[in-house]
């Protein structure tokens, strides 16, 4: 089942900022049983967050991030059914929210009009619904329990063939695991092929238009290098490490579960040149990200959902990420494995360490890149994860367990499968 990633962005009425913050804090402090949003009841939801971004010329914005299964209409239906009145309370704090009393239709229409879709996104566990992720973890846990009872010194217990069939008998006898027999795929053949066709088409288009593109690219490169040199001078003069107080405010909320959240807003460098470049890079990134189906985004194995949106009439870049592990390891992966791609994106925004030819240097300057990342970061007031103990790798492993549970496997494949526990 495909996933949808989007945000609702609304202007907060400055008079209500305090009330809204308090309300959101209340939700965060009691995510399981708060009276506003019963997250666990939203079966199609993977991750959600509320971020308030407060800034002098952009104003106070409420950013509501949603990563869910299926399409927006069904999701809005589910959202309003379970959290309608709560969301009404929240959005009453926004300046242009029209209803004084809760009306489902008004809320749905209001949210529908505030949708911001990302220009580029990545999904770690492609095609797995939140429900499937939960179930497959239960399946693994049950088999783990079963395996714990195996006597390791009893050869008949641990013989390869009998072990597999005993596991199958065990799971077949568990009526709560009936669903596991049903074959489920991650992506259809078309879903896997289309991204490659698109990349091929773009490549082909570039090839055909080569005579036009080459001179354009040379001019573009010359302008770019001039701008980069100027930016580099400015950066050397202005750079300061981010204040420790700001970082303290962020880390307070980090490392409570297996995953972490990152919300970052940066300013696109002024002028059309950077905006056009950024849009092109994001489009390219999105093309490449669509081909990822093993859980990695340019070598980074830990991202559940990550997305880039252009907001504020293209003046700002919003990045939201739900990733596994610590901030430090995430950022180090960025630097070690994906510095080209992310430099190509963020070097178009202000305050990023100097880049060369769009994608080089930049993030390789570890300490100053990390400082940039922290500075641009805003802590989410509310953050919800539907599976707080699982990484992308865990989820893929669980799926593989389930997908091959009842498949006929030869000895080598059986051995591989048993190593998944």
């Amino acid at each position: 089942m495909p996933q949808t990633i989007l945000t609702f962005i609304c202007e907060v009425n400055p008079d209500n900022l305090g009330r809204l913050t308090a309300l959101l804090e209340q939700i965060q402090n009691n995510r399981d049983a708060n009276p506003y949003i019963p997250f666990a009841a939203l079966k199609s939801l993977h991750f959600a967050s509320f971020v308030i971004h407060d800034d002098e010329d952009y104003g106070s914005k409420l950013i509501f991030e949603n990563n869910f299964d299926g399409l927006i209409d069904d999701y809005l239906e589910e959202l309003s059914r379970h959290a309608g009145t709560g969301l009404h309370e929240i959005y009453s704090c926004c300046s242009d929210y029209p209803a004084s009393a809760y009306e489902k239709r008004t809320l749905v229409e209001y949210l529908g009009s505030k949708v911001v879709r990302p220009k580029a996104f990545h999904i770690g566990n492609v095609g797995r619904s939140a429900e499937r992720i939960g179930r497959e973890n239960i399946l693994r846990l049950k088999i783990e329990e079963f395996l714990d009872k195996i006597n390791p010194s009893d050869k008949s217990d641990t013989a390869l063939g009998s072990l597999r069939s005993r596991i199958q008998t065990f799971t077949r006898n568990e009526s709560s695991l009936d669903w596991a027999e049903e074959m489920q795929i991650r992506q259809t053949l078309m879903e896997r092929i289309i991204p490659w066709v698109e990349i091929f088409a773009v490549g082909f288009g570039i090839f055909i238009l080569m005579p036009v593109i080459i001179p354009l690219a040379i001019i573009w490169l010359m302008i770019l290098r001039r701008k980069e040199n100027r930016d580099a001078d400015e950066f050397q003069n202005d750079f300061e490490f981010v204040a420790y107080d700001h970082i303290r405010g962020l880390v307070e909320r980090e490392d409570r579960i297996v995953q972490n959240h990152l919300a970052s807003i940066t300013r696109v460098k002024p002028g059309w040149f950077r905006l056009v470049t950024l849009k092109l890079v994001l489009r390219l990134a999105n093309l490449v990200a669509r081909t990822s189906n093993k859980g990695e985004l340019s070598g980074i194995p830990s991202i559940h959902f990550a997305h880039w949106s252009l907001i504020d009439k293209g003046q700002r870049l919003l990045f939201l990420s739900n990733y596994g592990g610590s901030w430090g390891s995430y950022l180090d992966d960025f630097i070690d494995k994906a510095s080209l791609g992310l430099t190509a994106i963020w070097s178009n925004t202000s305050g990023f360490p100097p880049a060369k030819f769009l994608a080089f240097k930049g993030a390789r300057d570890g300490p100053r890149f990390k400082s940039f990342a922290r500075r641009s970061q805003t802590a989410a007031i509310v953050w919800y994860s539907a599976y707080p103990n699982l990484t992308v790798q865990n989820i893929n492993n669980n799926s593989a367990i389930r997908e091959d549970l009842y498949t006929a496997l030869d000895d080598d494949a059986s051995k591989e499968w048993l190593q998944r526990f």
Partner: protein
Amino acid sequence: MTIQLERDDIQGFVLSSYAHLPCANYLLLQITDPELARGWIKHFVSQITTAAKKQEGFSLNLAFTSTGLSKLGFTASELSTFSRSFAEGMISEHRSRILGDTDENKPESWDWGSADNSVDILLLVFAENENALDAQLSLRFGEIESCGGLRKVFALAAGRQADTKEHFGFEDGVGQPVIEGSGSELKQQTRTHHATIIKAGEFILGYENELDIRVALPEAREMPTFGRNGTYLVFRQMEQDVAKFWNYLRDITRRADGTSDDAALEYFAAKIVGRWKSGAPLTKYPNSDPHKNPTEKSNENDFEYHEQDQKGFGCPIGAHIRRTNPRDSLGPDPETALESAKRHRIIRRGRSYGSRIENRFVADGVPRGLNFICLNTDIERQFEFIQQTWVNNRTFAGLYDEVDPLIGKKDKDTGSFTVQNDPVRRRIHNIQDFVQIKGGAYFFMPGIEALRHLARFSVETDESEVAPSIEV
């Protein structure tokens, strides 16, 4: 690779573990009068052992916490040029969470280093024998007394040990990166058949690091290069409950008839550590310890995981030595993995304290453990990363709900340990915490020039600029 380390300016402890000086004592001091303390430092600087040459008989080294530097006159803005971890200290709420300093490990119950019992200065004293150590200590205490301005909080003895095993009984200190330019490559290669050279900037400030950059140096007024040739020293006093460890293992390996199974006991103990007691690595010797004689030891370190032990049939994926240094095992490409692992290395300089237990199954109430000390230039990216992303990470390398079985902080959901096996893994459950943190702090160990500067440090005239203490 010919970089020149400024050995005259680097404290000796950075480049040497002082193996020739088996007795040590770590003095934890508090500054009561900054002016007098500066006088003591001034007198003391000339006594400090540098890395220029090996000093016979004894060695002395000195390091400061951020509260110490603050009392000596560093402003908040000067301290913000140091590592954030150092400036804030080890005991912030977030740091406690990632280091595993919760429940019985919580800083409030530490013997030293807690908010109520903070330390400012660490004075490391090493000597060739007990008499020499006693002589050094009484001499130094005398100086501290007569000079005034300093108060002893704690003295942590790290006496002579019978051998190089730690208290659980395992050969320790085998793996150690070689600092570029230190000249100890051959020594390490001979001792362990393996040497990983790591760029000097990972352990000494002022040199290029594994990211190929020189990071900005910590600054002091009138000395913008204050941090040069300095390093951060992480100290953790880790008490080991030896009887708890072995009794746990004996209980889970008992045969059906209730008798204990020595072979299984040793097997699981080795699986937890990743080495046999002799130090022989499980990746190379998956079935049994090649050294049957308990006095024999092995310092073999010439192995990688990707080729030899990818599935963890030898050294389990979550074993202690694999978590603390995963070598080339994380991710699909061994070379990339090894390159990134190089950015998360530390120099270990810890020593055991307390007497060896007589019967490893019988608790005797004697405190013993490891005074863990490590050196690095980026606490967040090195020590804290290892602790958080590897040791205490419940999903390390694709595992589920388990932490380092030896030193990780377990809770009710993370007390299991998976031992990969053919055809299927075994798991052990309800692993307890065998190690308890009794104290700890982050120190900065300055270069000699920086210490001289500290001794004559001018206190800012504008009192409001002086940071009374760092908020945590």
